[in-house]
């Protein structure tokens, strides 16, 4: 062992001095790569750019129905990435992200049915719905984490919350269940809300499922993905992973672990809320079953199959599983669910880190350093 008392051997590395002089923006951009996310270097980013380019060109070579359908897949990715943060990075397996999805979905409906789509209000409604999803998650997170609930009990509490919400919404069929103009409509769900609408001089652009919505969602997915990469590689993300690994030790290093867990959960709730509000806007429709048991289980399958501990694996895995699921649904939705269950079992047993994450690691090893 070296003698410890060499206090000022700290010759700064060149890269570090440059780091010091960089602006806050440059620091955040540098966090697009880091210890908490796979993928780094020119090959990775060139591949990523090609994927995005292909996604941009896709509508030119496809039909409007398929494009609208792809938009539908992208709607779900926010909830999946949020679950990735909560479960994969922070270590709390939430079984109830659909509670925040549903709350925000209904909120978008209630707000837009009452206040319409003029003056860009649908976007304000979207923002409010996302905030509600996040705040509700923060409240649930507060009671769970400050109440020292952990492990499997997080799953039980969150599942209970989403099932209670489903049950509650299912019994709102009567005409007395209305918020302003908006009838909640019980089991049949709420419909008739306006899609996202971009105010435009002359004629507003209404984003029905199709090419316009596809591009808006593509931009949102890319921004959200890059934003999460930066956040997860920031000190905040390091602490989340430390909490997943050893919460007592993280606390004993001076971190308010409960606050971090609560904030991570709130972020997961806000992202689930974004999916929920976008889903409602996409289909102009939301039902209580979006918060039911099957709906609650699916995000866990997407995230586990792709790989919960890496945001890229989560995103790609979710899109892949959604595509597979929909292709299978042609043969019957019960059948598709059984295949989903088998896929989950297969993943958990054979590649516990997730199929995509394992594949990415293999690619990284094979093509040396291009991907981690």
């Amino acid at each position, binding site marked *: 062992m*070296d*003698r*410890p008392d060499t206090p000022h051997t700290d010759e*700064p590395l060149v890269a570090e001095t440059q780091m*010091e002089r960089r602006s806050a923006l440059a620091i955040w951009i540098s966090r697009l790569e880091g210890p908490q996310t796979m993928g780094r270097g020119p090959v990775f980013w060139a591949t990523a750019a090609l994927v995005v380019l292909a996604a941009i060109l896709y509508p030119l070579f496809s039909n409007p129905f398929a494009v609208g359908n792809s938009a539908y897949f992208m709607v779900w990715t926010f909830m999946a990435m949020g679950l990735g943060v909560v479960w994969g990075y922070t270590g709390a397996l939430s079984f109830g992200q659909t509670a925040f999805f549903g709350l925000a979905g209904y909120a978008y409906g209630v707000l837009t049915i009452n206040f319409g789509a003029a003056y860009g209000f649908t976007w304000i409604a979207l923002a409010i719905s996302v905030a509600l999803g996040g705040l509700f998650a923060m409240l649930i997170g507060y009671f769970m984490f400050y109440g020292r609930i952990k492990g499997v009990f997080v799953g039980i509490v969150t599942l209970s919350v989403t099932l209670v919400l489903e049950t509650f919404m299912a019994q709102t069929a009567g005409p007395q269940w209305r918020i302003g103009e908006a009838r909640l409509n019980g089991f049949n769900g709420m419909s008739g809300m306006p899609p996202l609408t971009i105010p435009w001089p002359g004629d507003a652009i209404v984003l029905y499922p199709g090419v316009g919505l596809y591009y808006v969602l593509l931009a949102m997915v890319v921004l959200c993905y890059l934003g999460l990469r930066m956040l997860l590689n920031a000190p905040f993300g*390091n602490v989340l992973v430390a909490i997943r*690994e050893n919460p*007592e030790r993280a606390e004993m290093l*001076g971190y*308010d672990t409960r606050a971090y867990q609560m904030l991570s959960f709130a972020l997961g709730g806000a992202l689930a809320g974004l999916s929920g509000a976008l889903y409602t806007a996409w289909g102009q429709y939301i039902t209580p079953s979006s918060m039911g048991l099957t709906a609650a289980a699916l995000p866990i399958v997407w995230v586990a199959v792709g790989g919960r501990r890496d945001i890229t694996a989560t995103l790609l895995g979710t899109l892949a599983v959604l595509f597979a699921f929909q292709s299978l649904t042609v043969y019957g939705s019960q059948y598709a669910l059984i295949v989903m269950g088998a896929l989950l079992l297969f993943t958990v047993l054979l590649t516990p880190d997730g199929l995509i994450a394992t594949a990415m690691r293999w690619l990284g090893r094979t093509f040396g350093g291009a991907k981690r």
Partner: protein
Amino acid sequence: MTEILSVSKLNKKFGGVTVANDIDFTLHAGTMHCLIGPNGAGKSTFFRLILGEHAPDSGTILFRGADITRLRSFERIRRGISVKFQVPGIFKALSVRQNLDVAFQHHLHGHNLSSTVKRVVEFTNLEAEVETPAGALSHGQQQWLEIGMAVGVEPTLLLLDEPTAGMSPDETRKTGEMLHDLNQRGITILAVEHDMAFVEQIATQVTVLHFGRIFAEGTIAEIIDHPGVQEIYLGGSDE
């Protein structure tokens, strides 16, 4: 001398077992103090009480004059306490560098953070393992990593639970030198230790804990000559 830590009438029971029995304990700023006692005496539990991982049944803990008895663990740490646990408390899936980043990043940033990490990596002799997951290190290296995490923040009070367990005599001696060095820089140290040679090397004052009670206290010479202390160590743990 000013008191950095003063514990009074501290009591804690686990079920029927008393693990802290009316502990009155004072630690003076700038000292190196050892806590010894047979297995199960309650040494680690005493640390966990100081750190707030367990709440005492009664009693108070003052740190630098302020009552911290009801504070949460992270708040106590932020006031200047750091700890190395008996069982290495590291983040096994994270690399050595990430472990150190997490340990220091809440009060160091940018260049200061990376230079501190670099320095700690050097003195813990983990240069070749910077990118290795901590779980893949040898037990001794994990021990060093955790010591590095605890000392790198330059705390006011450093708590070490069996810092030399599993170390070679050479490493033990170097740990002792490192602790002297930290102490010179003004860090107060309280260490749980079984190795009496090591205790002799580092400590000015020694406290003996037995069945959760302060059994004896004094200089190392006084403790070694204390007939009762010899008895509890030699005669097993039957009182």
